[in-house]
């Protein structure tokens, strides 16, 4: 498996991974705001967000129809749709693509659910590796408290209730997240995760994220050259209008 840089794509992919409640979504959002302000061509893509697959996934989750195998396959379908329709063309045209969760989420989660690691990795082997992967590692208790404080009602699959770890959703969630963390840590070195201390302040983490990104990527390369040109038909008209308005004033 190769990164997009190794495959000579002009674009770059940055992924964030971590447990629910590790603060990764906040960090990637702030990274996006910064890159946009810098004038960089940037696109953000979230796990499990393809319009087409979404209705099937939510039906499956709501009605608890999913098994470990179909759970894995439906997320792979969602990923493939975003990968082939959005990520690849954008990376070909020199975008920085930011992914909130990437294939490592499947590698960790589906394996905890009981799918064979080789099977899961084989399915995702059409995808190139990110150029940079940040892993936000918070103490398990910190992540759990963040989630459990904000959203006290845990969803069935989110809590790993399908694994029958415990009849108590909170206890089940704790065990499930603990196992996912183990899986992440086991693959961290192989996939060159940059492990971030997610117990630190948000600002401090973001400063470090931005520093690492600017060291690893020459941002000037990803900037749009000037503002988007207007379609030729509109341009002269607009200028004439502006001139009229100027005169009137």
């Amino acid at each position, binding site marked *: 498996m190769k990164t997009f840089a190794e495959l000579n794509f002009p674009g770059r992919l940055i992924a964030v991974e971590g447990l629910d409640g590790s603060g990764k979504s906040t960090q990637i959002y702030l990274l996006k705001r910064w890159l946009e302000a810098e004038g960089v061509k940037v696109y953000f893509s979230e796990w499990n967000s393809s319009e087409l697959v979404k209705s*099937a996934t939510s039906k499956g989750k709501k009605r608890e129809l999913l098994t470990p195998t179909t759970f894995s396959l439906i997320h792979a379908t969602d990923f493939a749709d975003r990968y082939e329709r959005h990520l690849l063309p954008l990376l070909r045209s020199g975008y920085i693509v930011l992914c909130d969760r990437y294939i490592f989420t499947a590698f960790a989660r589906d394996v905890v659910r009981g799918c064979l690691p080789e099977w899961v990795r084989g*399915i995702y082997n059409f995808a190139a590796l990110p150029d940079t992967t940040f892993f936000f590692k918070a103490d398990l208790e910190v992540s759990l408290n963040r989630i459990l404080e904000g959203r006290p009602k845990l969803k069935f699959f989110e809590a790993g209730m399908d694994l029958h770890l415990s009849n108590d959703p909170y206890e089940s969630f704790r065990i499930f997240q603990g196992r996912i963390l183990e899986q992440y840590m086991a693959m961290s070195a192989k996939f060159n995760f940059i492990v971030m201390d997610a117990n630190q302040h948000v600002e401090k983490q973001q400063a470090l994220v931005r520093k690492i990104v600017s060291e690893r990527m020459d941002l000037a390369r990803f900037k749009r050259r000037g503002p988007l040109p207007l379609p030729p038909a509109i341009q002269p008209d607009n200028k004439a209008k502006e001139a009229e308005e100027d005169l009137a004033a």
Partner: protein
Amino acid sequence: MKKPATNSDGVKKCRRFYGHGIPHVPLEDIAGKLIVVEGADGSGRSTQIARLVDWLETSGHATVQVGLKRSTLVSSELEKAQEGNILSRTTLSLFYATDFADQLENVILPALKAGFIVLADRYVYTLMARDMVRGMDEAWLKNLYGIALEPDAVFYFSVEPQELVQRNLAKNASLDYWESGMDLGFSRDMFDSFVKYQTAMQAAFHKLRKNYGFTIVDGNRPVGSITRELRKKIRALLAAK
């Protein structure tokens, strides 16, 4: 057809998945039989399945039918996606795999456990052949469908593409977009594209046959003669129980 694996006593070993299978699903005590019918549209699959169901049920066997795009989980979404032809090939492939896995776990396996005869109107072979024709990696497909249960029998209805065209036109007065492989751009002429696509599909099936072993049924013959052949083979299969 590939002989079922036997141990030294000549007793049929318990059934198996092609790969590692489905997590948390043991295969002991599966009493039913899984019979698969493969072939293009117009090869006579549904006619023969209807006749087999009739015959089996009259003889006292409980049956269940499955087929592609029939899962509770994704069938309507898959239908919608195909209408717009907006999915890229990996996505479509995984969508079909999800549909298959849902039916395998929620219909096929429970029915087999309950001792039913499951008749599958197409199985993973069509899905693999379609993807192979579209240039997908065979090793990737083999891994993906390692979840599939090995059937007790697979009958592949072989009919010449020229004959398939005639049958489809006689039935619908038109050719199906996907069954003509129009997404592949073989030809803008649907008739040409259909023949080219079905020829490529047959080549893919022959390639798959080396690994998965099907019984080839000459589908150019009269309906009754095909039914007789199928009954004879299935009778032998049921007797071996």
